[in-house]
């Protein structure tokens, strides 16, 4: 027995799932998904992958850069979020407690004329790294970093410096530096 392949493009299935299609298209895909085991299975796998991505954020194994509006939604949904606000050149003593679900750093910065933004991170424990081309809203007046809570929990005293760099072609311009002095709770 062979399993017929799903011929509906993934982006169409995702658009359907995210309510981006009109009523007629939604109805047509409702019918198709009932009749086609392969497409139904593909959509199920996409939905499952989406749920796993959500869980990865909640587990705190990874760092993310996310908009401040999203952090507000997380808090409204009941997550306990420890927040630090830094001005350009700012420094903060920071920690994570057993009660925290997430720790976030809101780093204020003038970004209205920035086309591409990179992070340079120097960490006394994890070493140096560069994160290229982060997603940001130039009008938001800053970016929000969500470090891995799982990693933070392993730290004793640590020191981290984050530099925001605007990139335009081959030109680079330092926008601001921020310093995090981590101490155990």
């Amino acid at each position: 027995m062979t399993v017929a392949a799903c011929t509906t493009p993934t982006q169409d299935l995702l658009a359907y799932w995210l309510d981006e299609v009109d009523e007629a298209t939604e109805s047509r895909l409702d019918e198709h998904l009932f009749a086609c085991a392969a497409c139904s299975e593909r959509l199920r796998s996409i939905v499952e992958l989406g749920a796993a991505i959500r869980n990865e954020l909640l587990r705190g194994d990874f760092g993310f850069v996310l908009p401040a509006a999203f952090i507000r939604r997380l808090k409204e949904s009941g997550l306990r979020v420890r927040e630090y606000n830094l001005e350009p050149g700012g420094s903060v003593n920071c920690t994570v407690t057993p009660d925290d679900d997430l720790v976030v750093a809101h780093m204020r910065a003038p970004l209205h004329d920035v086309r591409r933004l990179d992070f340079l991170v120097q960490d006394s424990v994890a070493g140096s790294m560069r994160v290229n081309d982060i997603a940001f809203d130039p009008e938001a007046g800053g970016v929000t970093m969500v470090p891995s809570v799982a990693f933070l929990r392993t730290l004793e005293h640590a020191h981290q410096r984050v530099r925001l760099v605007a990139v335009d072609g081959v030109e680079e311009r330092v926008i601001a530096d921020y310093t995090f002095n981590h101490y155990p709770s």
Partner: protein
Amino acid sequence: MFSLERAISYAPPMGFEAPEPDDDAALARRIMASAPARDASAEAEICRRLGPRVRLYGLKHLRNEAAAADLMQDVLVMVLQKLRDGAVRDPEQVVSFVLGTARQMVIDGRRGARRRVQILEAFPVDLTPADEEAPEPLDTKRLGRCLSALPERERTVLVLTFYDDRSADAVAAELGLSAGNVRVIRHRGLERLRGCLEAAGGEA
């Protein structure tokens, strides 16, 4: 997980032809023909095939795991009973009948507990469990490796999209991007992630 592994697992051994399984309509006819006795294997098979699709439909339209599971059970109970009663006019259209039943149940008040009790009382069948084939769980370590390998921009868009199933328009508004741009990044990120997961699966 959809993958080559699973497709291969369906292949019959070399030199043997797997018997053609009954299609959905054939299963419906078997259930109708057996009534008032039960064709347990046909009922189990139709539940196994259609249960996950009803559940997916419920998740899409109700956005709630528990409600989708309830919908799946209620729809299957009603469909099996209608088949046993000979009340499905055209067994060739059993899939459409299942979809229509699911649609109507979602419309009916987006489903209150009272209506659910009424359905279960009105159709007192001992439902063969949907016996949904448990999907192979995602390897979270592998997913973690693949997620961390994604470009930051794609990771951000995927998290914003999937955390609470937000459209490209909504994600675009939060990132100061166009919806079209978000769709491109989202598609690229998803394909990259799936590719990484499948490649990692092949290595395992």
